[in-house]
């Protein structure tokens, strides 16, 4: 039946293999490099080309991870079960505070589900927010915040077509470094990592390659997210909130600079420039972006009456409907508040009010709040602190006249103006005098009587903050 000897058979097999390889290579040759979003075609087999055209392949989704592909292949159809098992393990490890195993398990889950958006979001959040708070020391917390950010950053590498992940990176960075309880430390660590041994006093380049402020890094991510949004459909968030990332990061950056203190003219100039830039983006980029609202009607946040009429025509709806749509969204994102806030902050008048308050506080803390006896004149001269707080109050009056909304809407303005008055009263009391019954912010002070306990607390906190730090433990 078979007259071929062993050698002939082997030759025949080799020939068969070669023949079969030709269609395999033709159809199945893989893409050997990462594919850019705008690539018209890819080098590779026919199937690879089809996958690219229909955006089905790993290569079109983001970076290729060979280990992930290998794992999925090895598991055959058992991926779902394996993922369930790993998720359960991850929860158990987290409960038992076995952080190494949790991180390892999360990595394994991602190998099996590299394009599942929610896993990246959930586990990134979990590491940055939940795991970090399980630790006590602030540098440990920062380490896990970084882990969460790095994790979701990895998600963006692997999923170039999911804009929300890019937005989430920006959100994690701006909220953790700028809003969290530990923001004072985190913002500092973001540019100068506490792991001096590894980063030599610089930033962790995985999350901050340029070593710049956290809000500026967040800005870059939000900008990238918006660019992705221009290319692919964003899902998972209200669009009008999604697009406000970059200008909000700019404004937050300017605000943070101000809270850090503006020591010299150069810093003040830079801060005004930051407010200018934030205002410009808010008005000219975010404000003029064409959003699609209810029933897919178009609207722009920064609309004039003419714009509303034009949009109503384009949408084929009444002006009232257009106005309602616009007004709802403007209110929803506090568009006017941020506009006025940025506008006020870039005004030299407001900068001067902040400056006078800042200088006044500095004088108070440096004990320059005692009236000086002038020998020649035989009378007491106002202290530096009182003079500066007087000046600050007058400037606040002018700011509120110019931007009346801010005396109602902006809690930070209200608090700062009230605190100016409170300090001014304290300076008088410290000198054994009663403050004059008439003073520039009197109406405002009396109109916000309910805020006074809060202001008193803030004053106490200021006093604690300026005290020298206690001796480190064991020292």
């Amino acid at each position, binding site marked *: 039946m078979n007259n071929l000897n062993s050698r002939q058979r082997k030759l025949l097999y080799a020939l068969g293999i070669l023949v079969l390889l030709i269609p395999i290579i033709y159809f199945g040759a893989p893409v050997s490099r990462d594919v850019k979003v705008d690539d018209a075609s890819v080098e590779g087999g026919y199937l690879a080309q089809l996958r690219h055209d229909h955006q089905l392949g790993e290569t079109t989704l983001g970076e290729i991870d060979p280990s992930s592909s290998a794992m999925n292949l090895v598991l055959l159809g058992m991926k779902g079960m394996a993922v369930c098992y790993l998720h359960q393990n991850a929860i158990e490890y987290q409960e038992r505070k076995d952080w190494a195993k949790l991180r390892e398990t999360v990595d394994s889950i991602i190998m099996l589900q590299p394009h599942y958006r929610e896993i990246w979001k959930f586990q990134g959040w979990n590491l940055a927010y939940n795991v970090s708070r399980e630790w006590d020391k602030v540098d440990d917390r920062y380490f896990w915040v970084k882990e969460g950010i790095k994790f979701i950053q990895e998600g963006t590498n692997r999923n170039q077509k999911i804009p929300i992940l890019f937005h989430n990176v920006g959100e994690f960075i701006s909220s953790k470094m700028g809003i969290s309880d530990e923001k004072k430390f985190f913002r500092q660590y973001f540019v100068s990592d506490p792991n001096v041994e*590894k980063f030599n006093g610089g930033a962790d380049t995985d999350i901050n390659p340029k070593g710049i402020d956290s809000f500026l890094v967040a800005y870059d991510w939000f900008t990238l997210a918006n660019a992705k949004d221009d290319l692919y459909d964003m899902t998972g968030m209200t669009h009008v909130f999604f697009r406000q990332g970059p200008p909000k990061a700019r404004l937050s950056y300017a605000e943070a600079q101000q809270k850090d203190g503006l020591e010299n003219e150069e810093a003040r100039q830079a801060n005004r420039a930051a407010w200018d830039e934030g205002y410009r983006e808010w008005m000219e980029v975010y404000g003029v972006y064409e959003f699609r609202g209810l029933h897919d009607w178009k609207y722009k946040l920064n609309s004039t009456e003419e714009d509303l009429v034009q949009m109503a025509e384009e949408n084929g709806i009444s002006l009232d409907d257009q106005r309602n749509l616009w007004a709802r969204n403007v209110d929803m994102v506090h568009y006017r508040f941020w506009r006025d806030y940025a506008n006020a902050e870039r005004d030299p008048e407001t900068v001067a009010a902040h400056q006078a308050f800042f200088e006044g506080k500095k004088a108070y803390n440096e004990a320059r709040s005692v009236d000086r006896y002038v020998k020649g004149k035989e009378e007491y001269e106002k202290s530096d602190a009182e003079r500066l707080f007087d000046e600050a109050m007058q400037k606040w009056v002018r700011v509120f006249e110019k931007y009346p909304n801010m005396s109602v809407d902006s809690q930070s303005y209200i608090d700062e103006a009230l605190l100016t008055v409170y300090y001014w009263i304290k300076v008088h009391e410290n000198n054994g005098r009663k403050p004059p019954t008439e003073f520039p912010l009197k109406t405002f002070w009396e109109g916000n009587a309910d805020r006074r306990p809060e202001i008193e607390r803030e004053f106490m906190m200021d006093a604690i903050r300026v005290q020298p730090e206690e001796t*480190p*433990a064991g020292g």
Partner: protein
Amino acid sequence: MDFDPTPFNASEAWISWLRLVGVLSLCAIGLSFILAVARNGSRGVTIFAEGLKGFLSDLTSLNPRRIFALASLTFKDAVRRKALLVFVVFIALLMFAGWFISDSTGRPELQVKKHIALVLTSIAWLTLPVVIYLSCWVIPEDIGLRSMHTVVTKPVRRIEIVVGRILGFSSVATLVLGLMGLIGYGWILRQVPAEVQSHLTCRVPVFGQLYFIDPAGQPSRTGINVGDPWMFRSFVQGNSRARAVWVFRNMTPETVGDELTLESRFEAFRTVKGSESSIKSGMEAQYVLVKNPREEAFGGLAIGATFRDFADALREGQFNNAAERANELAEKIRTSPREIPEQDYGGLFFGSGAANQVLDALATQDAGKPGAESISALSGKFLKLSETVSALSKAQESAGNAPFLSVADDLASIAETLSADAELLRERLPRLEVPLPTFNVAEFHAGDNVSKIPRRIQFTADYETLSRFLSSRVEALNAEGKLVSGDALSAELESSLEQGGPMSPENARLLATVLNEQLSAGELVIADGKLSPSQNRRWLTFFDTLVQKEMLVSQDIEGWKLELDLFNDLTTMNNLRVEVACVNDQMYLGMARPDLFVRLPDRSFRVGYFKSILTLCLMMLLVVVIGVTASCVVKGPVSVFLTLTIFILGQFFHGMMDRISGGKEAGLGLVESATLIFQHRNPNAGMDASESTQNFVRSLDSVSNGLVKGANSIVPDFGIFQSSATYVENGFDVPFDSAVLPSIAAFLAFLIPCILLAGACLKFRELEAK
């Protein structure tokens, strides 16, 4: 470490094994007898007897040479079946393992843990399929191909075939695991980054016993629950009397060395943000080395609220006060015994028993020293008290108040001794507390909180310790005759005090001055060239008074610095007591028993690693044993499934079966739960069925629970073998008594019955039946 290592109780395990194997053997013999009689009638008795005799004769005449021949044949057969190809897979895995291990975490302990876990897990899981395939398939295949006939026709006993096969496969599995272990070891050393190689070590811990002292100062089994769903750790409140107390046994220079190393890993919980330095550096904890026989003896008496004042007075060393409290209690028991809650009598029973034990041991240790007799007498009285309290529960109602009167009499008798020997007792029962410097808690960074405590410890004395130190110093000088010169104190007293030990010139001057003043005031008297306190007081009482009156406040800025020997002065019967306090206010420290341990000199990483390989090897050998046994009973594919099922049950479900068997698993039985699901009802509402139906369902559930219990007894717990990997991953040596010994015992426990079962099955199996 996030689990509590429990030493293996070999004797208990041995007894339960004998019981289980005995019952199962009897069942097997009985069943065989019934089957033989059922199939062959009365002739079955003879057949059964001959079979049993033959089997026993096989057991007693095993030939090692034949077994070895069969084993070497099996080994060759396994190699021929390409069993060793598993290496290729293993090496391929290790070559590309770097892809799977990201070092982004950067933390040394995490990196090391990942590498070790990868190697040990892959060794276990790669070897398993090979071992199951070989052990389950070969005997059925031999029978099927009739190659077994060529063996059984030779003078070989069938049990020897079983043993030979097990031995052969075991040697293959051992070889494979051994080589994989070596390769894995080399890979870990090469792959773990150089900067974290120092974390590849085996710490050798000595764990102690833990209990807590609550913020009110009372002993408690657990601390505060801060709401963590994982109940592993209990928390102590910061800036309060709350403490976690560890007692380490057998602490001698021979076992520990000249320096004591304490390592901890506590968890922090804060209810306030705290100061900036605490945010940056973490919460602070403090160790206090304590020698406190009073606490050990009388702490238990504080369990019942009624007796707490009495216990507190004893713990504070205020024995006269304690005597008064005891008399009050005696009176209360005489007049209204039943007003005292029953559980308080229970506390009194436990506390007096503990007091007796501790005092008895102290009396034996201090025999011949002044005060030892008082302690012995007190110990006897506490023993009697515990007996009379114990009798309360047994006493009949009809006995009335008589048993309570005995308790009252015993308490009064204790009060008498306390009052009479108060000074002596205080002298013999010291409380010595040596607070060590505070440290910042490193939390989950294993190995970062290590404190080295030298054998000679310098510390600032508290009031009681100062009184004891001064009285012993003055007594010693008095005995040497250096205290008095004529009718006055020696002019050299100051220098004598200074020379004798850690006393600064300023403090020596102060002491000399105060002694002179006391002599002038008549508080001290000179008689026969010796100085002594007036009114026959003891020196300790004398100095207690002076210290309390703050007449001996240190003139040296460093305070009264004393020096103690860790082992001689701070241990009680070689037991070292370490109390841990949380320093920060409104913050809490979480602790479990393994969170603090005495660290003996580290061992090389390879010691723990290869112990772990050994236990993995034992696990594989057990799988071989089960596989071969299964293959003697059923055919190849069934045998594979049976072995795999046993493995999966033992590996993943043994914990659950343990919980169900021990009644610790929450929820209802199988049928009852199914019924509730069907009826859409919750467990609290119960089944919507008649009482009889409910009883019937529960009886069905008791059957399924019984089956789970049965399975739990006969399915090996494979988790035991893998526990050693957890130790190595966490940087600990694998303890012999908690990990290696249980693995060996589990293997042997299944090896013997499995060989007997497999031998019997193969002997009585009809080979022609295929």
